[in-house]
Every structure is written in structure tokens, then in C-alpha cells.
């Protein structure tokens, strides 16, 4: 059964990718995800300068998922490049970058391109760091400018990862029209409270909500954006099983990313989902993955 998928002209063996920020700070972990069956792996988001991130607790487990405020911890682009340049799996590694404006994004993208990566994912959506992520990604003009700049001045494929924390995600998606693909969604702004300590569960207070609890929200984003823009979409948010993945695919996602599920099922999640998709396609009488992409919307 052929479950390969083509995103912006690039073919991936299977449509189950590792999401940015989950076991992907170090090269060896990223490669481990790929060797464990991920069709591609997105790195932790990298910025210009080193950031230690927030003090732990940086995650808080919930009955319905998890909230995190890692705080864009990253070694800075120099050390990142130094560590990742040696990889032989560059075709399957997508580098996530974050910046405060088009200049920063462009600078980062060029560095990434220089050492041979083919695709960047733009973090326009991290909800818990001032001046970055969703603060950039909720501004359609800025989104458009960043993408135009990167498409004009690099040869990279550009995936734009959008935030659900906006009134009309379709407006942002339209601003991101120039991107090769859209990644939907990043975490949902949220808070956890510990009533016995009477403190926030996370050091940073505000965090990003991920896991099963955000799946219905992510599905809505994928559906609305696919229906309204027809763009190539990678679905992410709360996927922990092949059934979840297929829900996204039926609504138009050409691939999915898996983050928090690593916490529930570890690296085997990739093969588990791929195998599940194969079984589903067989059982339901489809010839290949293509047949069900966007089936419920077309």
C-alpha cells in the first residue's frame, strides 16, 4: 500500500512526521525519530541567539493533554548549524525557525539553506514568548512579508506554521498564501493552576496546550483553511492514533505531525500510525493515501 505523500513537490515515504519541539533539540534524537519511522522530522524552533528557555516546570500533564512553556529554549543558529550540518538525513529534516521580523527569519533561513537543508518551517505560532511566535503570526501583514521575503531570497520550501489563537485563521492562511505548505496548528494558549500550591502549574504561567484536547480545534482549522484556500496542509494537534491521523487527512491534510503523543506512546507512534493508515486503506478499499486526502471536502 502506497502511503507516500508529496508536499510542495517533495515526496515523503509516509505522512507521519515529528512535530517541532518534541525530542528534537539534538540531532541524534531527530535522526532517531526518522529511523523509528517518521516520514520527516521538524527540529525544535531555532532563533538567532541562544535562549535558555523558562525554568522548570515547563510542562504540566492534564487529563486531556499537556500544557508547556518551554520558552523557545534553543542553542542559537550557530551552534545548531554546527551540530546539524553533518546529518546525512537532511532531506527528511525540516528546520523550524523563529524570528521577530522578516529580517531575522531571512537570516536564519539563509544559514539553514547554506548547509544543505531543503525545507524550513516558520514558527509563526508559539503562544508563550513575547515578541515571537503567535505575536508575529497573528499579524497578516507581517506573515505575508516574511514569507514573500523567504520565497524571493532563498530556494527553500517554506512551511508556515500557524496559530489557532486568532479570530479567523483563514485570514492568516490567506496572508500565508505564498508559503509552499501550511502547518496547522500550533498549541492553544492556556493556563494550568495548582490549587494546593495556589500557583500556576508552569513557571511561565501562560503555556501552550497540546495533545488530545486540542484535536477538535485543529480539525476545524484544517477544514476551514483547506476549504477556503485549497492550500497544501500538514495537520497537527492531538494526534495519538491512526484514526486521528485519518480524520485530518479526510479534511485535507497531506500529512500529519505528531508531538505530545510521543509522551503517551514514544517513538513507536510513527510506525503504529503508518501501519494503521495502511490497514484502514486496505479495509476500506482504497488504492493509496492520495484517494482519501480531502475526501470529505472535495
Amino acid at each position, binding site marked *: 500500500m502506497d502511503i507516500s505523500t508529496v508536499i510542495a513537490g517533495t515526496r515523503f515515504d509516509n505522512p507521519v512526521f515529528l512535530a517541532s519541539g*518534541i*525530542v*528534537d*533539540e*539534538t540531532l*541524534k*534524537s531527530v*535522526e*532517531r525519530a526518522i529511523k523509528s519511522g517518521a516520514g520527516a522530522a521538524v527540529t*525544535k524552533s531555532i532563533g538567532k541567539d*541562544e*535562549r*535558555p*528557555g523558562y*525554568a*522548570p*516546570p*515547563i*510542562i*504540566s*500533564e492534564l487529563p486531556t493533554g499537556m500544557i508547556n512553556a*518551554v520558552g523557545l*529554549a*534553543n*542553542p*542559537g543558529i550557530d*551552534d545548531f548549524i*554546527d*551540530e546539524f550540518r553533518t546529518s546525512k538525513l537532511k532531506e527528511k529534516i525540516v528546520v523550524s525557525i523563529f524570528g521577530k521580523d522578516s529580517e531575522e527569519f531571512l537570516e536564519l533561513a539563509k544559514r539553514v539553506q547554506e548547509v544543505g537543508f531543503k525545507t524550513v518551517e516558520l514558527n509563526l505560532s508559539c503562544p508563550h514568548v513575547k515578541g515571537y511566535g503567535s505575536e508575529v503570526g497573528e499579524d497578516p501583514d507581517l506573515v505575508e512579508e516574511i514569507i514573500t521575503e523567504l520565497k524571493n531570497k532563498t530556494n527553500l520550501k517554506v512551511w508556515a506554521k500557524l496559530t489557532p489563537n486568532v479570530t479567523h485563521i483563514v485570514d492568516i492562511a490567506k496572508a500565508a498564501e505564498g508559503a509552499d505548505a501550511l502547518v496547522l496548528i500550533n498549541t492553544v494558549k492556556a493556563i494550568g493552576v*495548582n490549587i*494546593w*500550591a495556589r*500557583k500556576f*502549574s508552569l*513557571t511561565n504561567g501562560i503555556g501552550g496546550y497540546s495533545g488530545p484536547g486540542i484535536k477538535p480545534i485543529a480539525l476545524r482549522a484544517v477544514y476551514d483553511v483547506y476549504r477556503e484556500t485549497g492550500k497544501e496542509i500538514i495537520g497537527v494537534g492531538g494526534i495519538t492514533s491512526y484514526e486521528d491521523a485519518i480524520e485530518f487527512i479526510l479534511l485535507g491534510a497531506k500529512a500529519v505531525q505528531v*508531538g*505530545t503523543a*510521543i*509522551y503517551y506512546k*514514544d517513538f513507536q507512534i510513527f510506525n503504529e500510525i503508518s501501519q494503521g493508515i495502511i490497514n484502514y486503506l486496505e479495509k476500506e478499499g482504497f488504492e493509496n493515501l492520495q484517494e482519501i486526502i480531502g475526501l470529505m471536502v472535495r
Partner: protein
Amino acid sequence: MKFSEIASAKKIGKDFFELSFSIDSEVKPGQFLMIWVPGVKEIPMSVSNLKNPITISFKAIGETTRKLSTMREGQRIFYRGPYGNTFPEPKGRAAYVAGGTGIASLLPLIRIHPGDVYYGLRTAEDIVYGEIVNFVSTDDGTLGFKGNVVDLFIKEDKEYDEVFVCGPEPMMKYFHDKIDRRKYGKIYYSLERLMKCGVGICDSCSINGFRVCKDGTVFEHEQLDMMDEFGTVRRAESGRRIFLK
């Protein structure tokens, strides 16, 4: 995040403390908890006594451990876990090789299956759990062997079916590289690295793609053979590599 009330709080040595409290799940030898001190930080701590009320044993070295050291019976302690894999139970002659606070993670096993305990310290006044220690070393020679615990272990030159090692990574690296592998059956190391999530998703504790918090903390000698970052590269909080030596 769960919480419990502290059943007892003791000072057991210089800057060294024990807190006991009951938790609601079973802990196995080598496992750790994430201990949260609200307003300060969340840190990993080995469980040094597995039966309720379980115990954590720690040195006050920074803001969180210092705050913990001021906590008293009846106060709330917040935790999650236990996390990590576990030491297998030894079957034959066992040696335990500890450096500093590394003793904490070995204590449960030592109690279940007595064996030779080697303990390395900086100086005499750092000694804790002296009653269970068979061979002691100090960097300054104020107690026992002068030098590090690895050299002490090699000097004693005994044969063991199982060896369990826990201490600072440089000490474990030295042990790993120095000992005559063929003299021992299995050798297990419990690693310590900077940990943020404790559950295998943040990657901050990873060595060559192995997460200390989730794939470890316990690794076998041969697994470490394949980890070229073990003892040579550690990670800053940012994930930046810090090359050792």
C-alpha cells in the same frame, strides 16, 4: 502534579538532607521523581528509600535544594513520577560505586541486595550513610583512600557479577573507560543530566539520542560504548553543546 505531606525532615550530613513522604505509586530501584518547589523550580530527585514514606536524599547546592532543605514535617511537597527505567535486581556478588549524591539512587538496591559499597567524596566531612559503606575515598585524603573512587575500586581489584555505578558524569566516564571490563558480569550506570520535562519529550537530557529520563536513567556498560557524547558533551539549558575537557 501530586502532593504529599512531609512525614519527616532530617539533616544527615554537611548540607545533606533527607525528606520522607508517602506517595501513591510504587517506585522501583533507580527511579526518580520530579520535585516541584512552587515559586522556585522543579528538579529531578532519586528515591533513596522505596517504601512509604519514601525518602529523597539530597545535597543543598542551589536554590531549589536549599529551599527543600528548609522544609519541615507537615509541609506540602509536590511531585510527579516516578519516572525512568530501573536497575535490575542483582543475582550474584554486587558492587555499588557511588560518587557524591549518586549514593541516593543506589541505596534501595544496596538495602535489597547487600554488596560492597564504594563511596567517593571530596572530603571527610561530606560523609553520609557511613554505616553501609565498605570502601571510601576522598579527593583530599581526609577519609579512606586518597583519590577518586574509581581508582579505589580498581585498586581493590575484586570480582563482581554485577556492578552499579552512580555519580557525576565525569566520574562515570572515567569508570567506564578505566576498568577492566572482562572482570565483571554486568555493569549498570545511572546517569544524571540536566532535566526539564522528565518524561522524554524536551530532549534536554539526551545523549546520542538516548533520553536519560526515559530510556534511562539506567544504561548498561555496552550501551555507553556507543554514546560518543557520554562524558564528552553536555548540554546547556538552551541545548547548546558544551564540550568537556
